[in-house]
């Protein structure tokens, strides 16, 4: 069994990697890269050479190419010590045209181009653009010099895959800091240093808190291992996809926060704030840079904190709605399917078939809108919004979950009814049922003890899939009821050409689908001992 499972998991990983590769080919190679500027307001304001340079900067951020300016090159030389600061200033300025370069600059420019073209880069030299009949530059008309190289798919794939899991370590911080290391405390300073709450803290690591306790589920949290699925550029600028899906949304949730800094009396500064100090991340040079908000509250460079918000995360909302609708679907669909099979060709069966036909044939959009319209009618009749048709994160009620859950549960119920009825009727005609009947068992007994047990096996296979599938969210339902869930992330990313999010979300979907099939097989073999994935020894 273990050998089989390892084999399955490895093959699953292989197909996930290939899926990511295919999606990367689709978004990076097949799509015109000019498209990323379609909805970029700053792009339309740019002019001339600046616009051209901006394009390459953005493409570097979106992961299309590697882009190095002449200035970057010189600064690297200064850092390495091969170029003095005075020399840097004399060669940094490039001429309006290549002919107007100063001799010293021309020497370094030639070296720059030679060095990078040897590595396969293309060089671009943009001459200055003047306003007509003057020597003043046009807006953005300054001369530019840079080199760029397209990132090949295999490199992009490798960097992406190796960057998914990041283990925090004490050598993360490049600057010189004192006391690099990991410390353990029983009294978490976030709670004022008096309450018993163990925590592991790091210095020199990316996160300040590596392991800590708090009062939200699952009570123990870690920052040691972070998952990054790719950075977003337009959907949620600068934030990782995984974080976009898991961070809380809505209004700020304030509480009394004890900051690390002490005031004149030696007491820690306490303040009503939504800051989550446990999420503190190292930002080089952020402390003591003259920002009073930071300088008064913190004592080191671990100043970048997230905030507590009152709502759930995108994935959280999708999961709550999804998991309840899955539960409702199994709770109603299984008994109804059984009833239909039991009363085959009777009224119940016919009504059930009518319902199944309706759900399968009618576009899902139609009945979701129908339920929304019904909810609106009901609210209008009652005068108040007893069955909210839009989601409101600031004053949540349980009633606002009702309509999305119904909309999601209806098709799953129909599907379950359809298949369970089919499987049960197929089982009814098999020989062991005839034998049981001739042996004198009652119809009810045959149904519960024999037919159901055999017919439920294929249904069981789908349970992990539907549970994990509820993490993904539903596109139409979430749009229609304005649920801030994860379902629309992919469509939003496609509409905004956010390549990072597209790849990250696809990886997430593919992983869920592979995992749920493997879990389904395991569950099936647990329920039915006859099913075995290991080759039998005789």
């Amino acid at each position: 069994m273990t050998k089989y499972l390892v084999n399955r998991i490895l093959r699953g990983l292989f197909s996930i990697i290939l899926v990511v590769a295919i999606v990367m080919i689709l978004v990076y190679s097949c799509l015109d890269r000019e498209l990323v500027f379609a909805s970029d307001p700053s792009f339309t304001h740019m002019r001339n050479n600046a616009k051209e340079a901006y394009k390459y900067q953005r493409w570097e951020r979106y992961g299309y190419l590697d882009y190095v300016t002449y200035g970057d090159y010189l600064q690297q030389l200064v850092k390495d010590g091969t170029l003095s600061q005075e020399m840097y200033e004399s060669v940094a300025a490039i001429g309006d045209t290549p002919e107007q370069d100063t001799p010293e600059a021309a020497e370094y420019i030639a070296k720059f181009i030679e060095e990078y073209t040897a590595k396969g880069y293309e060089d671009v030299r943009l001459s200055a653009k003047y306003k007509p009949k003057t020597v003043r530059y046009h807006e953005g008309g300054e001369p530019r010099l840079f080199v760029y190289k397209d990132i090949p798919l295999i490199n992009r794939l490798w960097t992406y895959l190796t960057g998914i899991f990041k283990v925090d370590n004490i050598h993360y911080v490049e600057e010189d800091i004192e006391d690099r290391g990991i410390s353990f405390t029983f009294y978490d300073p976030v709670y004022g240093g008096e309450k018993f709450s163990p925590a592991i803290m790091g210095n020199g690591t990316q996160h300040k808190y590596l392991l800590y306790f708090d009062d939200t589920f699952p009570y123990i949290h870690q920052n040691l291992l972070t998952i990054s699925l790719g950075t977003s550029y337009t959907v949620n600028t600068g934030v990782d996809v995984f974080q976009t899906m898991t961070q809380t949304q809505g209004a700020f949730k304030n509480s009394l926060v004890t900051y690390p800094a002490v005031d004149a009396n030696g007491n820690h500064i306490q303040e009503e704030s939504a800051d989550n100090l446990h999420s503190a991340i190292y930002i080089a040079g952020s402390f003591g840079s003259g920002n009073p908000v930071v300088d008064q509250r913190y004592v080191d460079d671990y100043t970048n904190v997230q905030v507590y918000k009152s709502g759930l995360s995108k994935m959280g909302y999708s999961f709550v709605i999804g998991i309840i609708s899955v539960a409702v679907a199994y709770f109603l669909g299984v008994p109804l399917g059984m009833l239909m099979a039991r009363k085959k060709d009777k009224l119940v069966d016919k009504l059930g078939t009518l319902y199944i036909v309706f759900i399968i044939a009618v576009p899902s959009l139609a009945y979701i809108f129908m339920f929304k319209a019904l909810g609106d009618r009901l609210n209008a009749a009652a005068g108040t919004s007893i069955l909210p048709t839009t989601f409101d994160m600031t004053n949540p009620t349980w009633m606002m979950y009702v309509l999305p859950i119904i909309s999601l549960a209806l098709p799953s119920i129909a599907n379950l009814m359809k298949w369970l009825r089919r499987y049960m009727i197929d089982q009814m005609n098999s020989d062991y049922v005839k034998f049981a009947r001739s042996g004198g068992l009652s119809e009810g007994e045959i149904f519960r003890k024999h037919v159901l047990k055999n017919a439920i096996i294929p249904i069981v296979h789908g349970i992990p899939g539907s549970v994990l599938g509820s993490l993904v969210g539903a596109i139409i339902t979430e749009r229609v009821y304005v649920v801030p869930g994860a379902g629309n992330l992919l469509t939003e990313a496609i509409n905004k050409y956010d390549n990072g999010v597209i790849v990250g979300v696809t990886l997430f979907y593919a992983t869920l689908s592979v995992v749920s099939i493997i879990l389904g097989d395991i569950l099936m073999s647990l329920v039915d001992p006859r099913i075995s994935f290991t080759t039998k020894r005789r």
Partner: protein
Amino acid sequence: MNEQNLINLDEFNLSNDELFAHVDNNSLDSEKITAPRYSYWQSVFRVFFRKKINIIILSLLAVIIVFTYVYPMIIGYNPDVDPFINIMDGYSNHLTPAMEIAKHGFSLKWILGAGGNGESTFDAIWYGSSISISLALICAGINMTIGIIVGSIWGFSRKFDMFMTEVYNIVANVPYILLISVLVLIMSASFWTMVFAMTVTGWLGIAYFIRTQVIIIRDREYNLASRCLGTPIFRVAIKNILPFMTSVIVTLAATEIPSYISYEVFLSYIGMGLSDMSLGKLIEVAQPAMKTVGWGFEFWSPVAIASIITVVLYVVGQNLGDASDPRTHM
């Protein structure tokens, strides 16, 4: 015994030899099996039309097809050159059927009111359905043909099975929406792009379904016997397995065709659909009108017509699928 039924042999005027001639035992005749003549497709339609509901549904389908393909041709409908389009005139736009009939007099054209530009909702819907139904039929045709051919080979060949299962695992995990939107962006949101986008990987699901069916039937005893007697694989596939699959294939077509219409509506709703005024596009355009009191007809009528079309196609297909199962021909 009844006296009157007795026949007087003298009436025939035949000699005794002629009356009682000896009939030889003909070995050729004894091979013939006397049974009522059986024609498969005749029986399919006999069973299909035995249910009265099928005749009603089929006539409904005929009406839909006439309205979809013949009606726009008769009135010469062109979505760009509609004489009633008037963006400026607020009094001719977003009218309910009653107001529209009061304005232009009663005609079939106005029984569903007017849209946001004063155009007839009724005409627009049928023009839109011609696009949507054509799309569904073409996509289903291509996907089912490729799917059935590949699926049967997939089911038969064990080597091909290993390879195709891996391909299926990979391709099935590439989000369909992403594939369609990338193809639409590379080419254009035209009808044939959409056909290409829906068929480029769409056949895989059908092929996988057929493969499972073939595997179930492939190893049955009668096929084993057939192969032992030396029947070539191809003949086994055509003569032994295909007839078994007819009802499965028809049932599959019944779910496939409406699903393409639904999917087209879904894609248009999320803004990745066709640029032509298909049913989905109509629903998407009319979506803001749903919230305004009195404008509801614009939104609900294309939704209702789309639902009626899909339900009718589904029911006809399902019942045809039931009828094409030889076990129901008794």
